[in-house]
């Protein structure tokens, strides 16, 4: 499909809210954007979609002036505007939440919400008034936290909501959200959508970037798709069924998805033959952190952890990895009792851990993709046994191919990759160490549909090769496709264990939502 034959109805609305035309941007000869246009109408939620590295974030940054575009014009209500910085964009009426949560971690939540527009009297910030308003704004997002506490004392998800609330509260004409839902759970996404609908009714236009197609069809009126920095097409949501949309994004059919389903079916049988658990946790827990639980990890076996945000999923994985120390129960690995008091011991036992906040804490932005990929493997081997350059090149090339990291250049500093591609490289880092147990916290967050299917296929393949997996995921459809066992958590308790036929999305949802006694029964 070329841009010219996509349905356009620009003429129906004589006065669009925001019009982008001819946006182009090159980074050192690489065309990240090439003649992109986008038209946002009043009261419209406009999905901006595309694979990892398609240029979505770059388009947004060129729009707000954070990145200087090579060409292109921007009109707001027909008048040309040219913001040269985030400050000017905000003044012009474009409120933005960038992909990297952009707040000051050392300031209080209230200061973060109102930085630059705090209520003042005689030049002094009215702290009490600001806190009151901050609490009111966050209440609209169902968030009741101490707004006087520093932002960094809260989880990534809370920080993300604060960033969104800040943008929404600026009562701008246009709201731009770059993957706002990547670290939110289903409930929080619902709240965000409710807020978006309210803004929409007020005539505010919203640009919404996401990799969740369900969300696109739930809230968006219109879709613009980018592919390799070019406009792949634009249409109303009603005109563009899901399959066509995926085709537009990838430029090809999603062959992987079907292949992956076949693979899933095949290895589902393979997993039937039970191997003995090599690691078992009995009555393992930590007071005030996670209630005691039992957990058995077998080679070739995937255990999924499901539950709402803050239900104790991440905490469970941290206990298993020794990043937090249990105060009750025993851990048995290879038949022997182990202490697991630190991640170093867990690494020694062959455990690998890909944390949730990898986006902010995992990457070393200045190092190349290759160096980032071999980092953990090199650490495991120790400084005395350096990987030869040839080995490094081989490993990097293999994972770049396997995970489809784009651009496929191992020597590019990882900081210059798009958000999703950075994430793939981090996953590769842990896969490269070939652990016996790999713990993945939200492995597919921020990863596009194409790569998504590939990562799930990869997880299955790793299992058939005998790796044990412990996966935290909020995407239940996804867990269902690969987990052999699903543990459901609620309020820091393991409340249900589902196996075999019982692993279905409604089954998991029921266990998450069930009253405590019902959950205990299921367990």
């Amino acid at each position: 499909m070329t841009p010219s034959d996509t349905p356009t109805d620009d003429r129906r609305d004589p006065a669009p809210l925001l019009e982008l035309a001819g946006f182009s941007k090159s980074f050192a000869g690489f065309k990240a954007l090439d003649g992109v246009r986008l038209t946002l109408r009043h009261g419209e939620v406009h999905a901006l979609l595309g694979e990892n590295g398609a240029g979505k974030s770059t388009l947004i940054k060129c729009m707000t002036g954070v990145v200087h575009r090579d060409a292109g014009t921007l009109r707001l209500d027909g008048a040309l505007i040219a913001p040269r910085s985030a400050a000017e964009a905000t003044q012009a009426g474009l409120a933005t939440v960038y992909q990297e949560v952009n707040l000051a971690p050392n300031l209080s939540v209230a200061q973060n919400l109102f930085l630059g527009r705090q209520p003042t009297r005689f030049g002094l910030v009215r702290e009490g008034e600001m806190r009151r308003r901050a609490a009111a704004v966050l209440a609209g997002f169902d968030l009741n936290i101490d707004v006087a506490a520093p932002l960094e004392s809260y989880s990534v998800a809370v920080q993300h909501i604060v960033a969104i609330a800040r943008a929404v509260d600026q009562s701008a004409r246009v709201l731009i959200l770059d993957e706002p839902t990547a670290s939110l759970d289903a409930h929080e996404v619902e709240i965000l959508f409710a807020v978006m609908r309210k803004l929409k009714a007020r005539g505010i236009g919203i640009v919404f970037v996401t990799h969740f197609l369900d969300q696109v069809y739930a809230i968006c009126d219109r879709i613009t798709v980018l592919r390799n920095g070019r406009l792949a097409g634009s249409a109303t949501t009603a005109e563009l069924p899901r399959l066509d949309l995926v085709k537009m994004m990838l430029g090809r059919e999603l062959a992987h998805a079907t292949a992956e389903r076949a693979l899933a079916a095949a290895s589902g049988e393979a997993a039937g033959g039970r191997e003995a658990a090599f690691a078992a946790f009995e009555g393992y827990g930590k007071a005030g952190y996670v209630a005691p639980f039992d957990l058995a990890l077998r080679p070739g076996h995937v255990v999924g952890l499901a539950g709402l945000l803050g239900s104790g999923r991440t905490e469970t994985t941290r206990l298993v990895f020794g990043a937090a120390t249990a105060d009750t129960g025993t851990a048995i690995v290879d038949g022997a009792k182990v202490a697991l008091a630190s991640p170093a011991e867990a690494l020694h036992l062959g455990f690998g851990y890909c944390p949730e906040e990898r986006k902010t804490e995992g990457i070393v932005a200045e190092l190349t993709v290759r160096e980032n990929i071999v980092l953990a493997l090199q650490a495991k081997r120790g400084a005395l046994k350096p990987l030869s350059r040839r080995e490094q090149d081989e490993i990097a090339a293999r994972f770049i191919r396997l995970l489809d990291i784009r651009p496929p250049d191992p020597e590019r500093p990882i900081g210059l990759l798009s958000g999703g591609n950075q994430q793939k490289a981090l996953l590769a880092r842990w896969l490269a160490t070939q652990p016996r147990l790999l713990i993945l916290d939200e492995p597919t967050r921020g990863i596009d549909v194409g790569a998504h299917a590939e990562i799930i296929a990869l997880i299955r393949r790793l299992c058939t090769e005998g790796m044990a997996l412990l996966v935290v995921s909020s995407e239940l459809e996804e867990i269902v496709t690969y987990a052999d066992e699903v543990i459901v958590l609620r309020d820091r308790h393991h409340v249900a264990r589902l196996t075999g036929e019982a692993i279905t999305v409604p089954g998991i949802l029921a266990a998450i939502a069930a009253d405590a006694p019902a959950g205990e029964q299921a367990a």
Partner: protein
Amino acid sequence: MNATSRLLPVAATTAVFLIGFLICSLTFPNFASLRVVMNLFTDNAFLGIVAVGMTFVIISGGIDLSVGSVIGFSTVFLAIAIERWGVPPLAAFALILVISALFGAAMGAAIEYFELPPFIVTLAGMFLARGASFLMSTESIPITADLYSHLAEQALRLPGGARLTVPAMVMILVVAGGMVLLHLTRFGANVYALGGSRVSTALMGVNVTRTTVLIYTLSSALAGLSGIVFSLYTSSGYSLSAVGVELDAIAAVVIGGTLLSGGYGFVFGTFVGVLIQGLIQTYISFDGSLSSWWAKIATGLLLFAFIGFQQVTLGLARRSRRHATGGAHA
């Protein structure tokens, strides 16, 4: 860091000062008096004033090495303007404040527009200001204007023969003003935000360029004010005065609990940091037999102790933060 672990360094600094004062009082019979405290204020007024500016700079993630030279330049400028050119003292004061503020603004602009590290820019500023004062005069010039002797006599008389002098009053006003500006205004919040994350602050729509220029303007202007106070204190202008004061100011800021990497700190902590350095000096002058270089050694040891302490509390705070993650959501 939560609210209490933020206050911990300042509390520790205050405790060190109080303990130090207690030790001095027990060692020297007539130490514990309002008079000694007031002298402490007067003798360290010029340091206290620049240290307040330095607190803003360091919290924003920068550094200002030029302040000592700016003080030196100010004293020479004042002496020459008043004594040779016959400029009325008050007009000379206003002039030097404007000049030093412009100098700071230029440094801030250089840091922003050429994306240079503050260390390099203010190092250049340090050489420039010092060189300029040598160009004006290499000798110490006494200032004999009436206003100077008048201001030197002016003081608030307190019980016990203690005197709250003009320099001390100026310092107290600057500390109070600094606290208000840093903790209660939008500008102050921007300073903290810059130290927390520069990129994010820009993306949040704060005018980072303007804020940075203002921070260095403030620091330099306070150095100019400190120069005025210094010239009042010595009744002269000398191009070699206040050499190394920038380092004393940085030490006071760090001892006061401000993180050298930016983002955290309080003006009050800096004030106590200045008093601690003054206390060490006073101890040595009371003792009479110790070399004044011991003051430097004691300051160095204190710095080490405080930096170590900060690392430990920071580490602990980070750990407890990790544990708390995810639990705060409603």
